[in-house]
């Protein structure tokens, strides 16, 4: 299953026309201790670059942008009681939401793992 990355530190796993979105391990390290995640509702239509999700840390609230456009299928309900999953497993069980992609062509502008690692190394 290919995984793509954005310059704003989101990741998206793509399986057919379904995408799973989260923030990267680098991003959670920058944010620090996460205390709350505001998740989108199933059925919500999002456009690439929208901020359907907000991650609250002890320090600040940060927008999470949609890497691609689509319709939200479900959010990660486990984060309601365990928002710290985003710290401990940002690129696994700390995923944020799934969506149905409306324009898979939007993936073309995203980075692969090697490109993202190079991007982070340059920050």
């Amino acid at each position: 299953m290919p995984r793509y990355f954005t310059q704003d530190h989101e990741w998206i796993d793509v399986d057919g026309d379904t995408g799973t979105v989260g923030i990267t391990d680098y991003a959670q390290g920058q944010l620090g201790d996460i205390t709350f995640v505001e998740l989108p509702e199933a059925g919500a239509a999002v456009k690439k670059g929208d901020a359907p999700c907000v991650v609250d840390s002890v320090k600040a609230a940060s927008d999470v942008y949609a890497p691609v456009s689509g319709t939200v299928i479900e959010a990660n309900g486990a984060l309601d009681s365990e928002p710290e999953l985003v710290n401990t497993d940002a690129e696994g069980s700390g995923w944020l939401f799934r969506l149905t992609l409306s324009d898979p062509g939007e993936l073309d502008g995203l980075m692969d793992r090697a490109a993202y690692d190079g991007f982070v190394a340059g920050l």
Partner: protein
Amino acid sequence: MSEVDTDSEFFEPETGTLPLDDWHSARGGRMVEFAGYWMPVQYEGILAEHLWTRESAGLFDVSHMGQLFISGEGVEAALEAVLPIDLATLKPFGPRYSMLLDEDGGILDDLMVTRWNSGFYLVVNGATKWDDIAHLREHLPDEVTITHLDDSALLALQGPKAAAALERITTGEWPLSALTFMKGGQFKIDGVEAWISRSGYTGEDGFEIAIPAADAARIANLICEQPEVKPIGLGARDSLRLEAGLPLYGHDLSPEHSPVDADLLFAVNKRRRSEGGFVGAERVLKGLADGTAQVRVGLALEGRQAAREGAEVYAANQKVGVLTSGGFSPTLGHPIAMAYVDRAQAAVGTALEIDVRGKRLPARVVAMPFVPHRYHR
């Protein structure tokens, strides 16, 4: 992703470095710009540092704060003409909380005043220190000298185990344990002269320690070698002071507010409330007599979503106030906030709502401190 509500700035003066700059970096401190200096926001993480301070002891570098020594002929009367303090009741070596007010009674800064043998030692906020010096110079007569002790570093050791850790490495005419809350004295740490007071801004027992900048790294190392102590960054300093209900200048205090609506009347000493005679007295005395439209209160939020500075407070559909600080309380496990609200909505127990990005979060007015103080009285 990106930080919400980031202010853009057109002009930024060059950021200064403090005596422990290298020391913080070597210990993994994540350095950010604060009050004009590079300072550590965190080391291992804000949550862990917060909880460590509450259960053991944390070392904070507060060298950005301004340390001033005010002396000269007539200093006592001159200082009373500026500050709402009663120096006749201020015994030597015990710091007391006070404020600099503008002509309209607005708060320019909050500060600590200590009587030393030949004058007064003031500790003021870092971001405001240059304006404070200018304000003091303008209002003090020429015979009174303001000395900026800028070759002095300032550390704070805070937490229930701070006393045990510091006493082990401190010598003096009397033991460190002779100090109770808001008392101070001259001591030595590893041969270095240190002005130590039993005070701080976390709500915990603890000490503030002024030492020569040249010795700061060695003394900070020695303190952190004590098993009870870890270095703590600005992030936890903010969450700790918020839990303690202590206002932060530039956020909860500003020229917009007077000591009356800030609910800090203890900073205006009793004799001065009747006599006045300090800069800004007119508005303060009027506020005392007539009350103020709003007052600073504590709010406890339900759930886990935090509300932050600038969020509006509502009673039904009526806007009744604005948050000046807010965040998740690691000790309590829910978000807390400070706000200025209309007096009609300020009673403890009043149910209110806070607007966070269009969503209304339920909140309740609660007494401060949110987490009980544990001072050594």
